[in-house]
């Protein structure tokens, strides 16, 4: 069971190309934007995005594993890192920073640049997730013993090299990719409306809280998964920000309060997954419903904010 790094690299290259084209299309829609300027912005967004994503992902894992990095020596620690060690939220955060900086370099407003990039970013996330299918167990989730499901629900991983011993794993990377594509459709429909970027990322993060729980490979402190925590912190920050912006509105912090309640429930559910014999399917149904509820609350809160503004 070796990683197919060639296929992974090709898929990521294709993802970057598609992302660049979507970024170009988004930039071209800006009033008065020439095709040359839009192309320059798209290229700069990709270049700075990739650079910042790599730097921020490494910085994130250094922070998460600081104790180990300090003991090993930071140089040795970084030299020993593999693609699978880098946190996804670090890469997404870094790419966002790169896109923002690209807009600033072109003397464009940062928020508008990000909003126009939202669909392209969601597409790149989807491709990155689909590409995880070439990294062995990395993007997969545990299936009960003897459960056999077809692709794209599950993947068969051959550990023997000759097909004599195969294990089936849930194709979590496919679900994550499809969720990101759904977020891309949302962003395309919103075009460059205000808050498109933060809302697209909000929905991707919400889905990731669920999918991260399914993954066999996840950076964790005991039963706390770091990606889940980061995604949740982002989602909660958005809901608190909505509350701050909704001065004069009734129950404006209700979604943020609900977010905290959902966080507590998810912590309890993760604990139950690790420590109890409760059926996992039941726990995941509860977790899914809570996250859908949070998504609905965000949508309604945003609608109220927009209505109040008008």
């Amino acid at each position, binding site marked *: *069971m070796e990683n197919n790094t060639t296929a992974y690299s090709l898929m990521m290259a294709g993802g970057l190309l598609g992302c660049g084209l979507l970024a170009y299309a988004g930039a071209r829609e800006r009033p008065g934007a020439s095709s040359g300027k839009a192309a320059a912005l798209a290229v700069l967004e990709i270049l700075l995005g990739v650079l910042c994503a790599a730097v921020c992902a490494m910085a994130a894992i250094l922070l998460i*594993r600081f*104790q*180990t990095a300090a*003991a*090993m020596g930071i140089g040795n620690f970084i030299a*020993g890192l*593999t693609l*699978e*060690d880098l946190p996804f939220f670090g890469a997404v955060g870094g790419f966002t920073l790169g896109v923002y900086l690209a807009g600033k370099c072109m003397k464009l407003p940062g928020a508008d640049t990000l909003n126009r990039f939202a669909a392209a970013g969601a597409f790149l996330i989807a491709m990155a997730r689909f590409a995880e299918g070439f990294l*062995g*167990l*990395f993007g997969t989730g*545990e299936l*009960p*013993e003897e459960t056999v499901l077809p692709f794209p629900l599950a993947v068969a991983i051959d*550990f*023997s090299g000759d097909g*004599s*011993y195969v*294990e089936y794993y849930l194709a979590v990377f496919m679900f994550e990719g499809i969720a990101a594509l759904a977020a891309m459709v949302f962003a395309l429909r919103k075009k460059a409306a205000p808050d498109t970027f933060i809302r697209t990322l909000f929905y991707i993060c919400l889905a990731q809280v669920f999918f991260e729980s399914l993954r*066999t*490979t*996840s*950076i*964790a*402190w*005991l039963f706390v998964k770091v990606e889940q925590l980061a995604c949740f912190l982002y989602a909660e920050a958005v809901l608190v920000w909505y509350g701050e912006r909704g001065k004069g509105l009734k129950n404006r912090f209700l979604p943020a309060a609900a977010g905290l309640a959902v966080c507590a429930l998810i912590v309890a559910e993760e604990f139950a997954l*690790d*420590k*109890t*014999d*409760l*059926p*996992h399917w039941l726990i995941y149904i509860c977790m899914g419903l809570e996250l859908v509820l949070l998504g609905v609350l965000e949508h309604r809160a945003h609608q109220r904010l927009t209505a109040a503004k008008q």
Partner: protein
Amino acid sequence: MEKTEKGKEGRTSYFYYLGCFDPGNRAGCPNQFFTGRECSAMKKYFALLFTLLLLVSSAAAEGARKLPIDLSGGAPYKVKYSSDLEVYEDPTIRVERHRVPSKEFVCTYYYALITVADASQLRTLPADNKNFLSNTRVPVIKMAKRANAILAINGDFTAAFSGNKSNTYVLRQGEVIRDTVEPGLDLLLIDEDGDFHIVPREEDLEALDKTTADGKKVINAFQFGPALIRDGVPADDESLLDQSHSPTYAGPHQLNQRMVIAQVGPLQYLTVCCAHYGATLPTMRDIVLAIAPECRNAYVMDGGDSTQMVFLGVKINNVKEEGGADRKVTDIIYFASADFED
């Protein structure tokens, strides 16, 4: 068949006639028909006979070979697990497993006695089959099946990265994976001859050459602990109950599930774990001594819900009800057969 604490049932194993694996007898020979001297002579006779048998059968076994020091597995299973199968034996390995509901220790414990023909049959494997420090976690049973493990147990949760487990020393299948140490934890080194060497935390673990032990190459090293028995000397209660000598969250004084690996003779090992209501570390030491009074080195691996013992691809301790899933862990220790057909 369940073996009782008194050891009257199923005592067909030649190990019992050596007098060193009887849970109910810590010092003397289990057979009351012989005097102490006769018993001692019998022990030597059977030990010699067993060694000769093992050597002859090993040499005669077609295809038996030393396993490579890498992440490959052992020879494919030749028999299927069944609940009444207590002994697996082929020319290269013998595994005998027991479940003992004990009134004396107020717990049910599971143990396996393993004899291998070659040290290379004591092996380790990470969850993703590639990297011992990866963030991948799967239940022991999956890794055990991949590796064709005759008997597998959870390891020291190498990639835990929490509390004082963040910097533990990791050397697996002959390769140094992480060259840092946690100064508060005992270190278990297993050399190329399959012999255990426990380096106590009091030594300068950082300066120590951890890749060799007594001039022999170290193949696997673990840092969890503490040592229950070192060079034949059992650890005292005070030392075992000191939280600073255990990994964070191990709770040495609490009733926790625990996994212990021990060496009871040349190429002879013991793995012991207790059931879900658990045992303290001193109790685990006493259980090991009850099973194998002449045990030289015994060392604690990860416990709690990680405690999993798998025999021929089936978990044999704390079997979960339907719907319950086993804890996913980062690594296993296993014993494999080297009896390949071709």
